[in-house]
């Protein structure tokens, strides 16, 4: 009997076969690591630091744009000729879901800000907090698409965050180290997936006039 759910899940998973999403996301984390490192290196109160802080939104927005471009560019050249073109439905989150996400995000942000104001020593816990929050996010993705390597990445995020904090590297330096290490882990995972994908999926022979596109 045809297992419809398995087929549907497999179709969603196929989007991640080539590892390009992870490579792009890993590069963004590495960029964030570099950004936080620069912020930690420049003394507080310096005009450069103020400029850097103001650039944060730009870094986030431009990395989102670049991720999209990166994935499209390489999918066109590597993935589509090998395993075919597929476009997924763009699901706009429902207003309820969007509101719930904003409330949860707001509560998390406000709680962290309040904790930080009440106890500045919490700076030491920043890498662990980042690691655990991202681990939850990656775990949700892993649960949705059912790929084992995403569970491993969720675990890696938590372990790296907690390990950096335990090593006594807190505050911005710790956060930059966390993003650097986790970004590297995500890029390595993506590159491994890409190598496996390229080995398993050679380019098919060019179609003759009797091929499917001649229909």
């Amino acid at each position, binding site marked *: 009997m*045809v297992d419809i759910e398995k087929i549907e899940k497999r*179709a969603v998973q*196929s989007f991640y076969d080539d590892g390009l999403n992870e490579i792009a996301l890993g590069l963004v984390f590495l960029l964030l690591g570099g950004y936080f490192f620069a912020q930690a290196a420049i003394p507080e109160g310096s005009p450069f630091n103020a400029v850097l802080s103001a650039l944060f939104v730009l870094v986030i927005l431009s990395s989102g744009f670049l991720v999209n471009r990166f994935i499209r560019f390489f999918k066109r050249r590597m993935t589509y000729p090998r395993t*075919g073109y*597929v476009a*997924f439905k*763009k699901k706009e989150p429902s207003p309820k879901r969007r509101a719930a996400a904003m409330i949860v995000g707001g509560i998390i942000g406000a709680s962290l800000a309040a904790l930080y104001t009440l106890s500045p020593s919490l700076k030491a816990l920043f890498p662990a907090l980042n690691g655990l929050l991202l681990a939850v996010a990656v775990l949700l993705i892993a649960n949705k698409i059912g790929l084992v390597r995403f569970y491993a990445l969720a675990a890696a995020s938590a372990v790296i965050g907690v390990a950096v904090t335990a090593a006594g590297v807190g505050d911005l330096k710790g956060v930059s180290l966390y993003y650097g290490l986790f970004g590297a882990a995500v890029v390595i995972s993506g590159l491994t997936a890409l190598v496996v994908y390229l080995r398993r999926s050679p380019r098919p022979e060019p179609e003759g006039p009797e091929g499917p596109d001649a229909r």
Partner: protein
Amino acid sequence: MPADLRAPADIDRLIHEPARLALTAILSVVDSADFLYLQRETGLTKGNLSSHLAKLEEAGYVAIEKTYRGRVPLTLVRLTEAGAAAFKAYRARFKKFLEKS
């Protein structure tokens, strides 16, 4: 005929065929896919895939668009609204039938 026994007879046989069921299941989660993608995901031969897609197209369940990506010809397949509704109905009916049996 009692309604319980009529349920399997009511099932959309066009979708019920395994290869076409796999195709509609894939197309139900994607916006569009090309011939090569569908061939790889279903494991069908080119001829079989063409024939099943033609049947689905004839029933108005899929729309096939011939286009180009750069200079490369591209056959894009997508589930139509009628196809999506038929697949949803098939799923619901089949689930109900399995629950009763």
